């Protein structure tokens, strides 16, 4: 792919003993993109990030981040990236300002520009007036934005966000994503891992990883088109019975609960009537059947079902 890609990996593999945590993954991320790495816990997301940051040696495969080799030029990568983990690794007994100042020292932000840069970050994180407050006393959303400020203190071109919104309220999450979009407009590339499917919608492209394998890497729209067959939303009086009946039908590839409704993925066009009939015969009163566009969750479920 493109040689000017910010991240470019080929057949990246990491084995821990018998366990293959990351299995032959290849993808690339361009400048200014938001790339979401989507997958359940233990699917290999963190292992991949650690290899990309140059702190974990791949077993095989190659990768370049910011043009540097991930195996040999880890130190150069570390200077050029920002990293924010799900635990918002702040020093809780340090104030907002002291946390920022610490990372400014770590990333060697020139002393003459330090004050100005820190004030910029405080404003960006919406923490003006709270500079002297201890980080441990901030709410989850503020801690999250402060952690982002710390990771961005040296204006890196690439930010790794590892589950950045875990345990944060929905409004703060929304504000956080607004902030992230602002950064991409300045040309910053974002590599974000998440297991929130709705959050992945913010990304330009999504990589879906499951059991160490990259199942797909595409835009959200492309991913949704990858679902073969038709997706039906079924409203009925007995969803549990409905699911039990649908699971036995060869025309149905997949069934999931969606609230009180049932989502069924059909293999061919003509099965809609068959579904209605089978449910009726099983004693389920069907209120409504609607064809729907698949959500990312449906895509993910269908991809995994396809792989298994």
């Amino acid at each position, binding site marked *: 792919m493109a040689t000017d890609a910010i991240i470019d990996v080929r057949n990246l593999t990491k084995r821990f003993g018998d366990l293959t945590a990351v299995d032959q993954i290849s993808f690339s991320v361009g400048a200014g993109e938001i790339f979401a790495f989507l997958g359940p816990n233990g699917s290999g997301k963190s292992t991949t990030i650690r290899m990309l940051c140059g702190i974990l040696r791949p077993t095989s495969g190659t990768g370049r981040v910011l043009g540097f080799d991930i195996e040999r030029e880890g130190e150069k990568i570390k200077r050029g990236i920002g990293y924010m983990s799900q635990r918002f690794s702040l020093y809780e007994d340090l104030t907002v300002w002291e946390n920022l100042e610490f990372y400014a020292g*770590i990333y060697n932000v020139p002393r003459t520009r330090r004050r100005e840069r820190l004030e910029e970050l405080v404003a960006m994180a919406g923490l003006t007036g709270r500079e002297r407050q201890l980080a441990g006393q901030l709410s989850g959303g503020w801690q999250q934005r402060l952690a982002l400020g710390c990771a961005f203190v040296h204006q890196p071109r690439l930010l790794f966000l590892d589950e950045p919104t875990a345990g944060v309220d929905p409004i703060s999450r929304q504000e956080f994503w607004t902030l992230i979009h602002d950064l991409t407009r300045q040309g910053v590339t974002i590599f974000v891992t998440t297991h929130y499917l709705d959050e992945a919608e913010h990304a330009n492209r999504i990589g879906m990883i499951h059991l160490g394998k990259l199942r797909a890497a595409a835009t959200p729209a492309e991913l949704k088109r990858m679902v073969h067959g038709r997706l039906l939303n079924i409203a009925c009086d007995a969803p549990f019975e409905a699911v039990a009946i649908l699971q036995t039908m060869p025309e149905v590839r997949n069934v999931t609960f969606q609230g009180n409704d049932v989502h069924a993925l059909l293999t061919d066009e003509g099965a809609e009537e068959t579904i209605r009939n089978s449910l009726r015969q099983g004693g389920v009163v069907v209120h409504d059947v609607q064809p729907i566009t698949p959500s990312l969750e449906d895509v993910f479920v269908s991809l995994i079902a396809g792989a298994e």
Partner: protein
Amino acid sequence: MISRLLAMVRKEFIQIRRDRRTLAMVLIMPVMELLLFGYAIDTVVDHLSTMVYDEASDVESRALIAAFENSGYFDIEGYALSQSELVEAIDAGRAKVALHIPPRFGDQLLRGQQGNVQLIIDGSDPNVASTASFAASSVVQARMAEITAASLERRGLGRAAAAGIDLRPVVLYNPTMSSAHFMIPGVISLILLFQALILTAFAVVRERERGTLEQLIVTPVKSWELMLGKVLPYTVTAATATILTMLAGWILFGVGVAGSLLLLGALSLLYLLGSLGLGLLISTVSQTQAQAMQMAMFFMIPSILLSGFMYPRETMPFAIRQLSLLTPMTYFLYILRGIMLKGVGLRFLWPSVLPLALFSIAVFALSAKRFQKRIA
């Protein structure tokens, strides 16, 4: 890069300043330990409460009782009227020692017969028992001839030779034999070992617990910068605590430094190097502060028991004494007592300085290597 190291050290000092537990450990604990070990733990046994059953009640028996009391080792608690009352006083814990003088004690002496006096000692504390027995026989040996001679003279039976040997001991370095002199070097060696070890280990493990270590690893911080960033601040706190202890020892107990301050400082730093190394080593194998504390105790207990901090090494069985040569505190304590109390220099201390240097440098090098490997 100096900017990164500076940021690490600065941050650590802010954290030390904000953490009451660490502050207390640095500023209050040394003085508290000093007071505790200096005043409360008095290893010198004297003023033992003593019960007397004096059946003779003559001039000679009263002279003997006075001699006991004047020795300073025995305080006469009271007089019993029977043997069983004596034993009961010891059973009840009212007395540690009971003295039983039989009837016609003076007469026996005057006839040149051997006087029989019974001493009953509470042996539940062997230290007390041995001191009491030793002190009593000293008193009897030293004063008996005198008492007999005086009696004979009083009754006009002539002067008996009561020459004997007058032993006048000279106690060097600690003439009043105060425990504080013995304990202050001990407290300093304890602080330099455990405060430094625990604080260093905690400082690293806390970052692991909090997740900030994970964050630091993906920054350009090198592992040696991280290590020095932890070691330097706790060198300063250990030095502060040591100076505080020495000042307190000087003001409260009058224990100064007889020898070279410079040598004391240099060798303390050498010893501290080993403690910081042990702290780093513990931090590489502990996931939580509780684990680190347990590991620290693993080093602490043998050091306190074996180094001669509280119990003299001379009385230990051969095998245990050899074992005590494995803890660095043994050497440092010897050095510290040498410099502080005796005022001696390297000429006498080198046999202890050598193994200490070997231990400190080896442990620090090993832990530095292990630390860098674990972090990277």
